[in-house]
Structure formats: structure tokens, C-alpha cells
């Protein structure tokens, strides 16, 4: 991680509506086509125009799953960006800006100032033209050949006509040539990484994983940062034969998905914490009726509306406790975009096998981040196992939907089959679905059904991969994380090891079922354990303690809405080794 020969980060800042996405996308494509790795984080606010958007792109010839610690190049699309971030740009870095409208301030930390007289260079009054001029200058500074940029601009704009292509190439060329003449390029230019890579967001990966798993029904109510799943599904639905419905509210979404799953399709919905709160009654309904359904909760900073465009790992206890009653559910927190993709078919297979709801918890950092991925690692045809599903009619009688079997799993018939007419009910019911909740409440039958449902989970741990300690078992420090922080923690551990602090990592993906014994076997031998998580109260630390009795030696927590950067964790570990604290909260340097 981050140990390549090339490690470069650039940022583009401006306000919403200034078209930051376009240069970001064009540069991303250039990078991945060259076979280089990419990790992108976009900091933004919940407004359509104005505010401050700050897109960070890290480029490396090694795998990168986070946006890193430093910035080499900053493109300021407005004065605000210069004012906010100039002080972060140290010696050797470059700040590119439109000198017609942006003036550098007094926070000079030694960056090269690369002002572009955009008006003079372009003779254009289009306010978006500075983005393209800036891209030209970036290409020049980074040492990317102009023909590469020209090709990308052509691909990007050809649908809008040759005139559009020519105009963009012309102004990009102006920026490129001006930069060649006036500014000092970086010493190192992006190497050729070999095989071209693909680029996706975590939300793309979740949606694609579900599609590959055979999800045929997807419903949603738009909510940041989960809407990307809806957008991917909607864009691809027709070609893939997936039905996508935008529904009146998340209550409708969740119940519609449960209904579709009962009829026999693999079904899914995605939302963020607030929407998931509305869905929770349906989670319990799926558990009680034993219907396999996949819910995705893409976490954002809460509580309540919270900070809609910021990240947090604050919903662990929400999903653990979602819906009334005492029942079995699967909860999994993928650790990066490819893991998010691979988790989906696995989760669909598990929910089908165990006939229960599953909740996938992602967060804004993974879901809205854009990452490079090796296309050969994307298995669009994973194994599909629907478990004990009856799909052919029968002329025998006596089907019991909730038959009390040894495994607790009762064969489930597709709705509409002759010979398997049955009822499913959210009321407690008998083996043949007769309600025992109202008139005929029977404690022995109730106990039987509770135990039948619970028994399904007796052996589920054997179906999933347990956590593995990365690094030496004798390490001085063991960092424990869960979900989206894996790439950041791994890189921090690499830096710590390089600086002489031997560090291992234990990353937990499966929350329920939980590998309590395996985790304890690892942690009981660890010297100093530190739990890293993106929330205030240590939700995972408390969960780990409740499941195992294990209390970690220290904690690193961040709850300001921004994701960790690797050095935050390095600093936190060093502060704890120095005995300064056992709960370190890093300071967020980049204010957006």
C-alpha cells in the first residue's frame, strides 16, 4: 500500500456548479487507461450550487485504497479554494489557478504558484473554460503528453459535436502550452502501469455485485450517499432485466422488496441511516416470515439528518438493533470497493440459504469514492446458490412452509406453484403458518418456532471467512478496524512498521455472525490493541466487548465527518505509545 515508485495526489476545489466532476472524470480515465491505480475522495456539501467542493485524486503505480496524506497539486477554480487550502501546499507542490479571478494569499508555504491568464489565453467568456485550461496545465505539469489529453477530451465531448471537441482541445492546448513555457513540471511523470484498469465507485460496485448475484428487483427512495446504487441500477436495468422502482418512501421500498422476494426474485434496496430507520420494521418482517432480502445502509454522519454529505461509521448499533424482537440477521461491512462487489453474491447466497434478512453496511467513503479496479478481478458470473428453494409444482399435499427441520431451514416454495399453496405471516405462526398469536397462543409452539429460526444460524460461521491477522503476531501494536477504514489502517501500519513501530492489523468484516472465538484467539496474544473507528462512542469497541468481553488498550476515533487519513492513525498510535492518551481524536487539517 502506497509503496509504489509513483505516488501523486492532486485536488480540484471550487463551488458546486463549477463543473469539477468533468476534469475529475477525464483525469481519472487518463490514469486508469495508463494502468495506474486511483483513489478519489470528493468532499462536498448538500447544495446544488455554491458551497465548497474539494475533489482529491491519488494516483500510484501501487494499489491505493485511500486518498493519502499529502497534496502535490491544487487546481483552484475559485478564490475560496485558494484561501482555504493554499497554506496546505508545501515546497515542491504546485497551485494552478485562473489569475484573472483568483489571487494567491499570504499563506505561502513554498508552493509554486501557477497562475493562468485564462481570458487572454482563450478569448472565451464561457465560465467553464478555466476547467479545461486548468486540465491542460495539469497535464503539462504532471508530464502527461498532450495527445493523451486530446484523446480523452475527444472521447468525452464527441457526443456533443465536433465543434465542442475542437473548442475544448483548443483551450486545453492553450493551458498546456502556457504551462510548458512558464512553469516547472514535476520531476516524475506518471509511469506506464501496464494493463489498463477500470474505475468505479463503491456504490457502482455494490449495485454490480447485486446484479451479478441475480438481483432482479431493486427499489429505492433517493438518499445521499446511497443514491449511486439507484442510479447504477436504473441505468442498467433494461439491459439486465432488473426491475427498478423509485418508491414513495423507504417504508414502501423495504416492504415492496420483501414482497418481491417472497414471490421469488432476489431483491434488494439501499439507503442511508435515516431511510434505514424507516425500513426497520420490514427487516423484522422478513425475519419472521423467513424471506431472504438484502438491505444496504450507506452510512453518513448522523444522528437524524446529520451531515448528509459526510462519512461516519455511526450506524452499527442501529443495524444490530434494527426492528423489534429477538431474531437472526446477517450484517456485513465490506472493506473496500472490490470487497463490496464480492460481498454481494456471497450475501445473496447466504440470505437464500438461511432465509433471513441481511444488511450490508457501507459508508460515504467507500460508496462515493471512486477507485481503480483490475477488470479481470470483477467476476460478473459468480456462483448462485438459492438454497432450499422449491421451483417445480407438485401433486402431493401437506406442504409445511415452516417445517421444523433439524437445521431449522424449511424448504421454501416459489409463490404460484401448484401443490405448495401457503401463507407467510408476521404474526407468530405454526409449522403450517397457522397464527398462534391471537386466539391460540401456545407457549410450547412459540418456543419451538423461536428455536427453529435461531437454529438456522448454528453453523453459519462455517460458511464465511473469519478475520485474519495481517502482520506479525509479535507486533508491538495491533490495529483493529472494521468496514471502510481497512485501506487507511493498512497504509498507516505500513508507515509505522517503516518507522520502527512494529504493527499488525486485524480487520473485521462480518458483524453478524461474529467470529468471537477466532478474534479472541488473535487478540489474547496481542501486546497493545488499538481500535480505529469513524465515530464518537466507539460503536465497534463496545460491540466487541459485548460479544467477547475484550476491552482494547486504546482507541482512535474520528467523528468530524471527514474520513481518516493514514497519518491521523500514525499520530494516534505514536501518541498512545508515548503515553499521552488512550483515546486519540485526530485534527482534520483540510477544512471543507
Amino acid at each position, binding site marked *: 500500500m502506497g509503496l509504489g515508485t509513483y505516488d501523486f495526489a492532486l485536488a480540484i476545489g471550487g463551488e458546486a456548479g463549477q463543473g469539477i466532476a468533468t476534469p475529475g472524470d477525464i483525469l481519472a480515465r487518463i490514469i486508469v*487507461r495508463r494502468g495506474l491505480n486511483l483513489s478519489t475522495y470528493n468532499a462536498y456539501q448538500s447544495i446544488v450550487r455554491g458551497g465548497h467542493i474539494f475533489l482529491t485524486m491519488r494516483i500510484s503505480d501501487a494499489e491505493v485504497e485511500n486518498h493519502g496524506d499529502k497534496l502535490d497539486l491544487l487546481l483552484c477554480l475559485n478564490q475560496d479554494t485558494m484561501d482555504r487550502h493554499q497554506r496546505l501546499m508545501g515546497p515542491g507542490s504546485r497551485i494552478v489557478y485562473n489569475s484573472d479571478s483568483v489571487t494567491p494569499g499570504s499563506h505561502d508555504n513554498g508552493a509554486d504558484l501557477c497562475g493562468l491568464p485564462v481570458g487572454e489565453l482563450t478569448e472565451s467568456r464561457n465560465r467553464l473554460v478555466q476547467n479545461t485550461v486548468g486540465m491542460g496545465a495539469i497535464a503539462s505539469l504532471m508530464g502527461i503528453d498532450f495527445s493523451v489529453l486530446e484523446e480523452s477530451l475527444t472521447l468525452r465531448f464527441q457526443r456533443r459535436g465536433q465543434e465542442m471537441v475542437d473548442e475544448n482541445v483548443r483551450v486545453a492546448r492553450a493551458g498546456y502550452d502556457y504551462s510548458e513555457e512558464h512553469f516547472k513540471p514535476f520531476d516524475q511523470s506518471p509511469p506506464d502501469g501496464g494493463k489498463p*484498469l*477500470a*474505475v*468505479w465507485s463503491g456504490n*457502482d460496485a455494490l449495485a454490480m455485485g447485486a*446484479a*451479478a448475484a*441475480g438481483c*432482479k*428487483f431493486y427499489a429505492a427512495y433517493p438518499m445521499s450517499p446511497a443514491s449511486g446504487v439507484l442510479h447504477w441500477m436504473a441505468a*442498467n*436495468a*433494461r*439491459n*439486465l*432485466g432488473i*426491475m427498478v*422502482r423509485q*418508491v*414513495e*418512501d423507504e*417504508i*414502501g*421500498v423495504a*416492504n*415492496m*422488496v*420483501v*414482497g*418481491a*422476494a*417472497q*414471490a*421469488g*426474485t432476489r*431483491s434488494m434496496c439501499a439507503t442511508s441511516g435515516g431511510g434505514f430507520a424507516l425500513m426497520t*420494521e*420490514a427487516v423484522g418482517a422478513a425475519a419472521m*416470515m423467513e424471506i431472504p432480502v438484502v438491505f444496504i445502509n450507506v452510512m453518513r454522519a448522523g444522528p437524524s439528518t446529520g451531515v448528509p454529505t459526510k462519512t461516519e461509521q455511526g450506524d452499527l448499533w442501529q443495524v444490530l438493533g434494527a426492528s423489534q424482537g429477538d431474531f437472526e440477521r446477517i450484517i456485513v461491512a465490506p472493506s473496500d470497493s472490490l470487497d463490496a462487489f464480492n460481498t454481494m453474491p456471497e450475501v445473496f447466497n447466504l440470505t437464500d440459504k438461511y432465509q433471513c434478512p441481511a444488511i450490508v453496511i457501507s459508508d460515504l467513503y467507500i460508496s462515493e469514492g471512486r477507485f481503480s479496479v483490475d*477488470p479481470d478481478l470483477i467476476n*460478473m*458470473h459468480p456462483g448462485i446458490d438459492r438454497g432450499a428453494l422449491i421451483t417445480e409444482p407438485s401433486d402431493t399435499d401437506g406442504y409445511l412452509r415452516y417445517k421444523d427441520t433439524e437445521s431449522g431451514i424449511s424448504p421454501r416454495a*416459489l*409463490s*404460484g*406453484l*401448484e*401443490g405448495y*399453496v*401457503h*401463507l*407467510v*405471516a*408476521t404474526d407468530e405462526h405454526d409449522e*403450517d403458518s*397457522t*397464527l398462534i398469536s*391471537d*386466539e391460540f397462543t401456545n407457549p410450547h409452539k412459540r418456543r419451538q418456532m423461536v428455536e427453529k429460526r435461531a437454529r438456522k444460524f448454528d453453523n453459519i460461521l462455517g460458511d464465511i471467512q473469519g478475520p485474519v491477522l495481517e502482520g506479525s503476531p509479535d507486533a508491538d501494536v495491533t490495529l483493529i478496524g472494521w468496514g471502510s477504514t481497512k485501506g487507511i489502517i493498512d497504509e498507516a501500519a505500513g508507515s509505522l512498521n517503516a518507522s520502527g513501530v512494529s504493527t499488525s492489523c486485524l480487520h473485521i468484516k462480518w458483524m453478524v455472525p461474529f467470529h468471537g472465538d477466532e478474534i479472541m484467539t488473535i487478540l489474547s496474544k496481542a501486546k497493545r490493541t488499538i481500535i480505529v473507528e469513524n465515530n464518537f462512542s466507539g460503536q465497534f469497541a463496545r460491540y466487541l466487548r459485548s460479544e467477547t468481553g475484550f476491552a482494547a488498550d486504546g482507541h482512535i476515533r474520528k467523528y468530524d465527518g471527514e474520513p481518516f487519513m493514514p497519518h491521523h492513525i500514525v499520530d494516534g498510535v505514536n501518541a498512545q505509545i508515548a503515553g499521552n492518551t488512550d483515546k486519540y481524536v485526530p485534527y482534520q487539517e483540510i477544512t471543507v
Partner: protein
Amino acid sequence: MATTEINLRPADFKGKSNPDWCPGCGDFGVLNAIQRAVAELGFRPHEIMTVSGIGCSSNLPGYINTYGMHTLHGRSLAMATGVKMANHEMNVIVTGGDGDGYGIGGNHFTHTARRNTDLTYIVMNNQIYGLTTGQISPTSSLGMTTKSTPFGNVEQPVNPLTSAIMNGATYVARAYSGDVRHLSELIQKGIQHKGFSIIDCFSPCVTFNLTNTHDFFKERVKKLEDEEHDTSSWELACEKAMVFGDTIYTGVFFESDRAALEDVEPVLKEGGPLSRRELGLDKDEAQKIISRMM
């Protein structure tokens, strides 16, 4: 529609359990009318899914021999929409009460009408919350005294028919459960109608609503069929639906042939029910997706 050559009798649609409704409850008439309707239409039990929410009337799927889902309070229409989308060859009947459908489930009622999903929704409207032992419902009359309104209800009731018409339902009817033959006819038409059919059925609660009783309705109901009512006019339909006094109209108020959701949803154009399709992705389509990411 139905594929059988053996005609089943209403009794063949009797469920495993006997209803636990109070003696004299209007819901018995609704259950009989549904069983009669599906038998007369020639259906077999596996061709139908009955979906309900929660409440006295929502226990109905347990009493009828069809596929069934006894879901959450207020969520029957959402669940049923999911069922219908996943298997649009299934005939989906939705049953429930006025609190379930017009109160807690009101948002889904509005939007199911708008979508015009091909569901037949039969609401057993007793204008009271019965299972919770007598509180006002969204259709309770002004002034009604209940446990939650000991000094009389001050809130105006909703009008489910005008609301359904305004929001896009394409078959809007009202019935009285004491007239099983008429109700059964209306249900049959509703099932045969392609699109969202709502049959609001007065189904008296003999225990907790001592105002809107069987006698109350017997004296007042008047069939629209006897009135030469034009069911294509939403204005006339709403006018008739607003009448609630000495005369209360029953019958079909409004009908339209606006396309049902299943018919405008491109994914259902060919390939049969979603629930029967191959799960794996087409190799070429999968490759196209990857190529677009590069």
C-alpha cells in the same frame, strides 16, 4: 386468466383456520364474496396471492385457500406491489381495514393508485379500530364517541373513493358486505380489471361501532347500477362518492382503461415473471458494463 377445466366451488377456497371474527362481523360477508368471486372466475388456489396488513380484517389470508402474506400494519399494498412486480402472472388480491389502508398505509394507497398496479384492493371499512378495542379510524364520522374521542370526534373523515379517483385508480367501487352477491360481482369485475381496483366495502363492526351498523347501511345503500351512472366521468364519480347521508351509493363509481404499471414497465415486456427468470447475467451485457468503466 384462469387456466382450469375443473370448476372449483367457493368452499374449495376455505382456508386452514376458521375466522376469529365476532359473530355478526361484516368481514364474514367479504370473505364469502371473495371465495365466491374467485371460484366463479374459475381460478385455482395457487393462481392467487392474498396479501393483507394487520387488523381484524387483515386476518383474512389465513381463512382463504390461496397463497397468502399476512404482513405489517399498513404495508399490504407495498408488499403486494412487490409480489405483483416479481410475478405479474399471479392474481394479487389485497385485503385489510380502513385504519390499515387509509391511516397508517395512506401513503402507499395514494401511490399505488398513481402507479395503477394491477391489484384488487378490498378494504373492509368499519369506520373504527376494532382489534385495539374501539378508537376512531380515518373514516370515523364527525362527532363519533369512542375510547380515544370520549367527547366526540372533531376530525373530518377521509373519502377513500374521491382520493383513489384523484390519485389515478382505474376501478373505484363501493360495496356493503351485507350484500354478498353484489360485493362478489364488484370483486369479480375488480379482478378482471387491468389496473388498480379499489373496492371500499362497508363492513360493520358489531362490537365497537354502534353507529354504522348493518341496519344503518341496509336503510341507506343504493346501487349506482340503478341510477344510470356514467363510470367514465371522474366528476360525476366524485359527486356520487361525496354523498353520505340518507343515501349511500354502492357499485362502480369510476373506471378507466389507463395502462397498468405492468404494461408500461419495459422489463416485463418479454421473458415472463421476474421470479422465473435466469439469475445469471448475459455474458455480452456483463462485458459491456466492464468496458464502459475503462
